[in-house]
């Protein structure tokens, strides 16, 4: 759901809300999903991103986001140099992702311990984004509110278990999706909530049988 500040805003470094500010936010979200400090980033641009990323500074913007910068950080201009200083190796590739939004980027991040994550996001205009894939899981996350990502075994009743815990703590859900690789395999719940959520609630979810992980992604 759009708000006034999606239209008047963001306050940002130019030159393009979709190709610069949106790209910063996709990069920043990918970093938060990784949850640690990335040391290498492979960035694949698709559609309009692939054709014009150099001109719009999309490359600088997405690296700035991966480094954790905000959309109005004046260091976006020099983010590629900042990446070198901070030990982030980056590579850009142009690709065509079938059926993807025109402004789509795929980011493959690794940290020093070898943890890795693949995040696909689209910049949908005015600096707004949709994260549509995390590893092989299809999701739909705007990043505007706190979001829980919960991989679990694909057994009956898991949605009820998790949503009951949230209900007991008066956490309101406004977006929900679930995706699984195959029947009886691993499924992933993506839950967007109003307001914040306490880590202690997350621990309760984590302690349930068949839950493999539970991560709170803060709004960006």
């Amino acid at each position, binding site marked *: *759901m*759009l*708000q*006034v*500040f*999606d*239209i*008047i*805003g*963001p*306050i*940002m*470094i*130019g*030159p*393009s*809300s*979709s190709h*610069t*500010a949106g790209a910063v936010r996709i990069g920043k979200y990918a970093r938060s999903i990784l949850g640690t400090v990335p040391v290498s980033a492979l960035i694949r641009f698709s*559609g*309009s991103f692939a*054709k*014009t990323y*150099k*001109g*719009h*500074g999309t490359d600088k913007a997405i690296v700035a986001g991966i480094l954790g910068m905000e959309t*109005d950080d*004046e260091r*976006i*201009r020099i983010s590629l140099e900042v990446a070198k200083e901070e030990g982030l190796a980056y590579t850009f590739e142009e690709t065509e992702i079938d059926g993807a939004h*025109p*402004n789509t980027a795929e980011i493959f991040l690794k940290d020093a311990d070898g943890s890795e994550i693949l995040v696909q996001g689209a910049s*949908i*205009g*005015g*600096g707004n984004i949709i994260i549509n894939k995390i590893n092989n899981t299809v999701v739909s996350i705007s990043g505007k509110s706190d979001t829980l990502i919960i991989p679990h075994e694909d057994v009956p009743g898991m949605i009820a278990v998790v949503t009951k815990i949230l209900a007991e703590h008066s956490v309101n859900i406004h977006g929900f999706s679930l995706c699984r690789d195959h029947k009886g395999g691993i499924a992933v719940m993506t839950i967007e909530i*109003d*307001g914040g959520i306490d880590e202690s609630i997350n621990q309760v979810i984590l302690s349930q049988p068949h839950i493999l992980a539970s991560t709170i992604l803060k709004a960006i």
Partner: protein
Amino acid sequence: MKYDSLADLVLQAENENIPLCKLILRDQAQQAETEEKVLFENMKRSLIVMRESVESGLDANKRSASGLTGGDAFKMREAVNANKNICGRIFGEAMVKALAVSQTNACMGRIVAAPTAGSCGILPAALLTISDDRNISEDDVVMSLFTASAVGMVIANKASIAGAEGGCQAECGAASAMAASALVELCGGTPKQSEHACAIALKNILGLVCDPVAGLVEIPCIKRNAMGVANAFVAAELALAGVESAIPADEVIYAMKKIGEAMSPALKETAEGGLAATPTGKKLCEKVFGH
């Protein structure tokens, strides 16, 4: 409120006999579960950044990172200050400000997307020009940004505000429509007149393609911001005089969406068609990127 129909918003404002800006602020505060004051202060910060982005764009010598553009706002200001411009002070000032903000953006400076960065000069130029000319209070200008946002939200929800999806009509068109509606409100017009101004402004820009040279938000974007604010004044002026749009705003927005869908991808921010594909456009691209 759902922000999927401008007519519905106008009807509600009329029923309650309040201006659009108050209706929107109240609703947004309710939805965000916060106080109106908090949203007002946030919006005020945007207005401050808007003013700063005008100032930084007036530099005569600052060039964009590509080197392709710069100095236009300064030239226009000189002409206005010398009383040389043909359309009078208000039009001249509005163009100066639109060019200035747009140049700040091209120089990777700080701006407020309104609704996008490519179209960021239009709304501040319209509002700051009219408020300086009529001594309108800063608080009223901040409030008018809520009206502009509501128009932008309806356009974003029912069509698009991305050049890559809808062409320039979705960016400069949306910005111009937002500015026109806000201008009407600031000049004492009714919510219904704001709706007509939105319709008229958007109708005038329907079909405009997004064809940036070298894919940069510079040529023709900077000058299209000057056009966008001029068009906002045209639409507001007509609406305030009682001129009505034959096609309702919501239908114009839908038409904009359909036109955007019918546009070739070459004309939607890919820098493959239109001005980007002209011999000079290609030459400039080569100059910047060497290919």
